């Protein structure tokens, strides 16, 4: 195996709207190696890869391929240099056949312009055989397993004679045996001289398959080297860093009676055997990696998903919630994640968004009292410090933080006993983040029972009394908020540790 660097990215800097995202980051990938790119959400991994892929242009810094300077001015250039990007969401067309996907956009045609189907099938079979799998090139992609779909993307990269393949969290949607197959494949690719940049949160996998690593944190390069010489803990520490303020917002206070009791909740393929209780005044945190099933779990609780088994008790009463309306009536509120898709009604005004779930409060003889709505909004505007000049403008004109506060106001107006926040500070600047967490804590102090879902461990540490860690749809640990360390949360979230094993 040669050791000449295939790719050198040198002192890359990039800022968006004046906010630096990458600060003098360098990355070197040698031919025929699997290089792990690590870091938490928002560390700058995707930006770095998008620069390599020609999607973004760096503000400073250079890229060399095989020792030659290259300017990745657009994705085409990057492809021509032999770089392929396999995204987390696979870019395959399910309603086309395998060979059609392989040659999509670069179909082989005869002189008359007709497709050379047999030739394309032959080449497809050849590449698939090289990867050690046997799929009929004429099979429809929708009939294949997810790992095979990934394989098609990889084959496509090989078809275009790629020398470097970037894989962004390729194993999130794969079952265990599929992961094995993928790793097998990656080793074969490595042998034939192809380099791979492997982005993942799952440290166990990285230890198994990668040769070298680079860790980013807050846009800076914090470590790079050979995997063999490191143990998982050091890498985790590098990722998390110690500089984050660990000041806890939440104070210990006494809890009231149990308001929510979830018993053995399971849903095929999403989550299983979920059991927990929530008391009045308590803040529970649920954390884990993306795709751990916590969002789906609480969507079920809220009546948005209906197919599940198990028991839910609210205030000691067995409830059957099959519609969000019933959740409301039972005393359950959900501030969903992905505000734009799930929470805001962008064509309605700020006031109307606030009143949407509790219009009954503003009605008189069936007609909405706009005056009453407006007065109520002003109350929340003061209480939550919502910055809006004219509340009659549509909500999409507000900043993310203010939108979120309006959504929180909407649920406070409903006045439920239990409030679930899913990723409440998504896409919100630091100042507003802090305010929102303070609001959540004060809600608990006023006697609400609160659940926070977040993939950012430091956030749940700051504001939760108890933290549940989930991994692949199961609760792997229940930790005390003030005792949990980020490393510990991480190791449960990545599946390298399980509380159940410890006990059993």
């Amino acid at each position, binding site marked *: 195996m040669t050791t000449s660097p295939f790719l050198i990215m040198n002192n890359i800097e990039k800022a968006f709207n004046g906010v630096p995202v990458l600060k003098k980051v360098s990355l070197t990938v040698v031919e025929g190696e699997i290089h792990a790119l690590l870091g938490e959400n928002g560390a700058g991994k995707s930006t770095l890869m998008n620069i390599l892929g020609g999607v973004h242009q760096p503000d400073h810094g250079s890229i060399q391929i095989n020792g030659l300077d290259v300017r990745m001015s657009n994705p085409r250039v990057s492809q021509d240099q032999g770089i392929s990007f396999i995204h987390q969401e696979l870019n395959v067309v399910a309603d086309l056949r395998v060979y059609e996907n392989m040659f999509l956009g670069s179909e082989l045609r005869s002189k008359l312009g007709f497709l050379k189907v047999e030739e394309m099938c032959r080449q497809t079979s050849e590449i698939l055989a090289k990867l050690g799998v046997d799929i009929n090139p004429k099979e429809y992609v929708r009939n294949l397993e997810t790992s095979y779909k990934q394989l098609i993307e990889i084959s496509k990269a090989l078809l275009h004679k790629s020398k470097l393949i970037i894989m962004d969290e390729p194993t999130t949607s794969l079952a265990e045996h599929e992961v094995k197959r993928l790793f097998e494949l990656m080793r074969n690719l490595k042998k034939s001289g192809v380099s791979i940049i492997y982005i993942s949160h799952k440290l166990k996998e990285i230890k198994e398959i990668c040769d070298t690593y680079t860790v980013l944190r807050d846009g800076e390069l914090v470590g790079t080297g050979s995997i063999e010489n490191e143990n998982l803990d050091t890498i985790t520490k590098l990722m998390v860093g110690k500089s984050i303020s660990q000041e806890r917002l939440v104070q210990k206070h006494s809890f009231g009676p149990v308001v929510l009791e979830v018993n053995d909740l399971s849903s095929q393929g999403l989550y299983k055997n979920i059991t927990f209780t929530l008391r009045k005044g308590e803040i529970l945190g649920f954390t884990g990696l993306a795709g751990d099933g916590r969002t789906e779990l609480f969507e079920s609780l809220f009546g948005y998903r209906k197919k599940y088994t198990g028991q839910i008790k609210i205030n000691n009463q067995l409830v059957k919630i099959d519609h969000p*309306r019933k959740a409301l009536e039972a005393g359950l509120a959900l501030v969903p994640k992905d505000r734009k898709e799930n929470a805001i009604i962008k064509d309605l005004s700020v006031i109307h968004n606030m009143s949407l779930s509790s219009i009954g409060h503003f009605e008189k003889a069936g007609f909405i009292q706009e005056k009453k709505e407006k007065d109520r909004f002003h109350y929340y505007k003061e209480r939550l410090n919502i910055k809006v000049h004219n509340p009659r403008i549509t909500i999409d004109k507000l900043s993310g933080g203010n939108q979120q506060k309006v959504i929180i106001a909407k649920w406070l107006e409903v006045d439920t006993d239990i409030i679930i926040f899913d990723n409440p500070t998504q896409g919100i600047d630091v100042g507003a983040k802090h305010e929102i967490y303070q609001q959540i804590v004060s809600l608990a102090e006023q006697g609400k029972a609160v659940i926070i879902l977040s993939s950012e461990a430091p956030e749940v540490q700051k504001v939760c009394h108890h933290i549940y860690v989930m991994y692949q749809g199961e609760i792997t640990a229940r930790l005390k908020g003030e005792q949990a360390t980020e490393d510990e949360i991480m190791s449960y979230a990545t599946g390298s540790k399980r509380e159940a094993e410890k006990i059993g």
Partner: protein
Amino acid sequence: MANVNTIKQPNPQTSSTKSRLTWLWSEYSVIIAFLVIFMAAAVMNPRFLDINNQLNILMQVSIIGIVALGMTVVMLSGGIDLSVGSVLVFVGVISVLAMNATGSIFVAILTALVVGSFAGFLNGLMVAKGRIASFIATLGMMAAARSIALYIAEGGSISGEVSGFTVIANSNLWIFDFPVIIFFVMTALVYVLMHKTRFGRYVYALGSNEKAALLSGIRVDRVKIGIYSLVGLLVSVAAIIETSRLNSISSSSSGVQYELDAIAAVIIGGTRMTGGRGKIMGTFFGVLILGILNNMMNLMNVSPHLQGFVKGLIIIIAVVFQKRE
């Protein structure tokens, strides 16, 4: 008129004035367009301004106008109802039969309202519970309702046999014909429903973001069923007027292309095809614009075969202007 002039001049003004003009245009473009067309018509043909001609225009648009109100509500919710013309005929045929059988105008009206709302309810059921795209569900209803009407009337017309039924559409209050008054009253009612009640709020919400509406605890399915039933109800009001006007309804030629005229009025009125945005008053003026265009073409002896072309052109121009926003 001053507004129109200032907008048309691309003079370099301060940004605040400019943004205010943009706002004015986006909020009131239909009314401005209406004024422009009205003025143009008045200049082009002096007979246009004649009060009888004006009242005639109102009379002619009243039926489509009532249907278009319902269409606005569906389209605000992000759906569409293609079945309005066929349901109108179906309702007309059934209610005339009911009237002839019982001899009661009251029964006829009641039958119309019940049958129309029920057809709408079925549409709503297919869309909300059956999760069928509204285009497809109402396309099916369109074919089916027309077919049953044709079958019952054996392809011909059915006439009323009760004297007094024609009074509904053929009398007037002061200078206004009854259908015009009904159209105005319906506009006011639907306006209040859409802007002052929770139903209206929910329609806008689910048209803008159905998932967020559901996650806000809105009974989206029930609202949808309500929407299509409301359209059916408004269609049956239109059906009563249509039938009463000539004391008969033709199973083959009544209500043909009403869905297209109604959709045209809604689009000209500025309602967004994908829902969530639009106004009842916009549709009101959209209906009037269509009425003026038809009237002008008649006054100027434009071949009726060409009138569809002009209408098509206007719809496309209207949508192009809305895209600019």
